[in-house]
């Protein structure tokens, strides 16, 4: 096959597209034999750099993934050789390929090499990795975000995040956390932290990503990939369903914020709703108690169903939220439960549920917003205004802030 000579800009474009689509797969393949994520990322970065100088000159290879993998592996091998006197591991074990450096191959088909991304996800969410580092590690190693972007998403200084990530990766290498998928016996203990970390990617705000891309989209991609790779884990499919259904209702950042009930279902993405519902069906296990993500996905499905039926099935929401707070009584789910009870039973019952929450509720924006709404419906306008103001101060999204201030203003007028 001949190579197409292209301009530098197009080659850069191919490199960027490959980076987006294959980054995690390539990092996983490079890191799995050695356990060295830092080395894998560095050598892959060098391969991309080399691509940006060679591709515009010689043409984009037919198989960019294979080209990048071979170049990165050769680079890994060189580094390993130069450091060989300090290590006693064999080169073969270290690079997973015997013999001398190989030419970039066009027939190195990524689709025929086992996908190691799932093992990489289990490494990132290993119990020996601090819980608050698991999502950042996934963002970097699997999705290819740089540490400065991740630091912004977590609202921590860039230097601190970069240091944490480096320490985490060295820990994986030095303690030798294996790149394996847990067996059937260990899976129930290991899977929740993986799904939790993937979900963590979704809940991050990532305002400056630009050009239509969003972290929510990346997290959804990661959730669907995880479910596909695992094949038959109901909670993994449920998480894919949850993020897909939630994405179906996502609005463009900067738009005017509307609470779910005031949204026009015609603006929701029908294709994503259908896709999410299909994932949710794959999560169903008749006769088996639903997991946390299955309940959350089912709640999303009830909301999305308004696009078809024209009305919200509040009784179904009530049942689902009651089940959810029973198995996963997080502050967030209990606030949402109180909101639904406040609507289906009475605002007073909803308020009493809110009052039963622990003091950490005070730092939670939805707590104050739901409280404001229930107080307003009880006619306690002054208290409601104070609650909406409080919610507004706690919100980082300008559109949400504007909406809360508008509600406060309507009540004080």
């Amino acid at each position, binding site marked *: 096959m001949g190579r197409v000579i292209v301009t530098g800009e197009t080659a850069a474009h191919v490199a960027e597209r490959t980076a987006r689509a294959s980054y995690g797969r390539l990092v996983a393949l490079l890191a799995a034999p050695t356990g060295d994520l830092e080395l894998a990322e560095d050598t892959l970065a060098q391969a991309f750099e080399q691509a940006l100088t060679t591709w515009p000159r010689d043409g984009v290879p037919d198989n960019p993934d294979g080209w990048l993998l071979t170049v990165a592996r050769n680079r890994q091998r060189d580094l390993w050789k130069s450091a060989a006197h300090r*290590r006693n591991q064999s080169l073969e074990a270290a690079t997973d390929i015997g013999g001398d450096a190989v030419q970039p191959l066009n027939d190195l088909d990524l689709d025929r090499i086992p996908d190691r991304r799932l093992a990489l996800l289990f490494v990132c969410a290993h119990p*020996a990795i601090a819980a608050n580092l698991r999502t950042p590690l996934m963002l970097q190693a699997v999705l290819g975000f740089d540490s400065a972007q991740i630091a912004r998403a977590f609202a921590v200084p860039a230097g601190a995040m970069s240091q944490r990530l480096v320490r985490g990766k060295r820990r994986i290498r030095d303690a*030798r956390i*294996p790149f*394996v998928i847990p067996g059937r016996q260990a899976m129930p203990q290991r899977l929740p932290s993986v799904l939790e970390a993937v979900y963590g990617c979704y809940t991050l705000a990532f305002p400056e990503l630009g050009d239509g891309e969003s972290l929510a989209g990346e997290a959804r991609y990661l959730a669907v990939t995880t479910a596909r790779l695992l094949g038959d884990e109901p909670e993994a499919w449920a998480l894919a369903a949850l993020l897909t259904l939630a994405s179906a209702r996502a609005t463009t950042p900067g738009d005017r914020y509307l609470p779910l009930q005031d949204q026009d279902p015609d603006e929701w993405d029908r294709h994503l709703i259908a896709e999410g519902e299909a994932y949710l069906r794959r999560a169903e296990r008749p006769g088996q108690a639903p997991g946390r993500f299955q309940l959350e996905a089912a709640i999303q499905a009830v909301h999305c169903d308004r696009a078809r039926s024209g009305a919200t099935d509040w009784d179904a929401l009530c049942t689902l939220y009651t089940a959810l707070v029973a198995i996963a009584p997080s502050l967030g789910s209990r606030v949402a439960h109180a909101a639904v009870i406040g609507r289906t039973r009475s605002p007073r019952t909803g308020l009493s549920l809110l009052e039963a929450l622990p003091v950490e509720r005070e730092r939670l924006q939805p707590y104050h917003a739901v409280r404001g709404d229930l107080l307003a419906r009880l006619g306690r306008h002054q208290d409601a205004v104070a609650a909406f103001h409080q919610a507004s101060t706690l919100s980082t999204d300008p559109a949400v802030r504007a909406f809360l201030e508008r509600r406060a203003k309507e009540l004080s007028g």
Partner: protein
Amino acid sequence: MRYMLLFHYSEASEDTIGAEAIAAGMRAMAGYAATLEQAGILVSGQVLQPSASSTTLTLVDGEPRIQDGPFADTKEQLGGVIVIDVPDLDAALEWARQAPPLSWGTVEVRPGAVHIEAGTWVASS
């Protein structure tokens, strides 16, 4: 890869927990050692005397100062160690999970860097 399992716990004696509890602990440790040996992964083990019998040296103005007591005077003390040779952290954690001291304290799993073989330091990985 060598991992050291470090057992930290509040020190107990026959006076504090009774002779039967001490005997049961020793039986459990004997069974654990036999299991590790049978699996072919046991490198070495050492259970320590109470920290009250420990003596600590520090250099003060270039001269070693000898003091009674352990390095850190904490409620939980290092009570013993076992070194195992297993492929990775998951395997080490699985063995640590079965360690009897987990019932009366904390088990720390720490990868080895180097160890001595025939008078020479060699890599533990």
